[in-house]
């Protein structure tokens, strides 16, 4: 397929090509790079994949990685769900809850100590 506009492009692409996949996205979608073996292609999604967070800009919407200890995040420095083995406390992933808070092993969060 010769690189051209919109024919045979993945759903969210505005432009794409055989080898590179999406080159640009339809409005309001997030551009993500996906690696499959040696290949690296562009994909357009309505929300970023797990382990990534989205930032919207006037000209492009991009996904970027959360920190290594975080599964889903709002920004790189603010986690919304930690990887297993970590407790979530105000956007941070901790191996141990700080003094004054207790570890809730069901929700994997640090919560106020209920007396």
């Amino acid at each position: 397929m010769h690189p051209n506009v919109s024919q045979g492009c993945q759903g969210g692409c505005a432009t794409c090509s055989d080898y590179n996949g999406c080159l640009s996205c339809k409005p309001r979608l997030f551009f993500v790079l996906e690696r499959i073996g040696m290949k690296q292609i562009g994909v357009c999604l309505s929300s970023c994949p797990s382990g990534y967070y989205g930032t919207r800009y006037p000209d492009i919407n991009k996904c970027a990685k959360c920190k290594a200890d975080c599964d889903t995040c709002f920004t790189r420095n603010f986690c919304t769900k930690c990887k297993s083995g970590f407790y979530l406390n105000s956007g941070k992933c901790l191996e141990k809850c700080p003094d004054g808070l207790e570890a809730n092993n069901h929700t994997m969060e640090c919560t106020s100590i209920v007396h």
Partner: protein
Amino acid sequence: CASAPNPKPGAAPSCPAQCHCEQDGIVLSVDCSELGLPEVPSALSPLTAYLDLSMNNISQLQPSAFRRLQFLEELRLSGNQISSIPGEAFSGLYSLKILMLQNNQLSRIPAEALRDLPNLQSLRLDANLISVVPEESFEGLQSLRHLWLDDNALTEIPVRALNRLPALQAMTLALNQIWHIPDYAFQNLSSLVVLHLHNNRIQHLGANGFDGLHNLETLDLNYNELLEFPGAIRTLGRLQELGFHNNNIKAIPENAFVGNPLLQTIHFYDNPIQFVGQSAFQYLPKLHTLSLNGATDIREFPDLKGTTSLEVLTLTRAGICLLPRAVCQQLPNLRVCTLHSAVPQTSFCFSSGLQHNRIHEIKADTFVQLTALDLSWNDIHFIHPDAFVTLRSLTKLDLSDNHLAALPLGGLGSLTHLKLQGNPALSEPFAEDSFPKLRVLEVPYAYQCCAYGSCGGYFRASNQWEAEGVSPEDEDPHRRALELFPGHADNHYDLEADEIQLDLEDSKLHPSIQCTPSPGPFKPCDHLFESWIIRL
């Protein structure tokens, strides 16, 4: 939470046609995304915990579409054509934690529909057409922590609606048309940690605009129209990241960040800043990068007392006359110090760019501990023999476009990059062993390259300074400093510290020397008829 009903023994939970379902213990993950569905499938199992209906053609939600899904924790409806949501659409979703409605056609917050979601933590409403946020919009959402309202049509901060979200920790209102932040706009948001307001039209900010944000750590005001320094930040005692680049701010006042001792990064490039208060950047013990470019009214070097972690200081096109001797002691961690200004007598810490000044002489003890020095485009006639003697770690030296007739070699043994072209009187060739570690050399005459390896084969013409393909005349002096300290010619003024570290180490040097102008048939190495004049 309510216990699961007992499915008939052996009966697998039903999976809607075309959708992809995965069992996770007793609950089900259902993916019906990108199927062109016109409405929510009916045959949804009550054991569904995750339901993805994104990127379909759903424009309406049936009133009881999800009534039986008591265990549903995540519902994705992004990328559809939903313009309104009936009041009971989400009733019964007591376990719902994540609701994604981004990239639809909503013009107002569906307050009725959101009323009864006691466990909702994340609500995505970004990329809609929302211009109306009724006061009761988030009334039932006492667990809400993360709210996306970016890329909508808001012109005001929805103060009353937001003040009912005591658990909110992160919010973005970016990419709207908000023009001002009134006093006490976020008064009840005491748990808020991240607030993004970039790409709005904010011109005015109330002096008490950020009161109440006791836990805020990240504030993004980039790409707005602020005319004055956002003084309201003084109440943000836990602020760590602050951005107000690309605004219209002309001055940073004295004691600007006195209320923000935990600041680690401040991005404020691309502002027409002329004046910076002497005490503006004092007592910021966590700050590691400070870029003050084009602040033409600065007369004195900012007092950085108590800002001891600074590693990169960029202060170009200012009007500084004297660099205090104590600057190295005040900034023990400084690795890069870029100064574009007329500085007759200075001593620098690690590396410096002094292009386009009026320096005409360099005295004996001028430089200490430098790794990179750019003195191009001055009027230097004379360099004291000991000027570089103390510079054991100098690796890059640019003396191009001056009036040198000789170059003292003392202290230059570690050079990897040397640039001398543009000094017509500097005609003597150098001995091959003058610069044992040299990799890149630019000299006034081709024959001066002959000492550095054969005149053919891999001898590549090279213009090896990091400069982009731009001729010196039309080069913006500020940009040259940037290219001496790599990042990229296209990046912002604010450089990433690790990028600079990477280049200063230059770990991947290659042994062959790149020398220009390279000799050739018309610029031979061996002079003809015993006279080197013919060679020129």
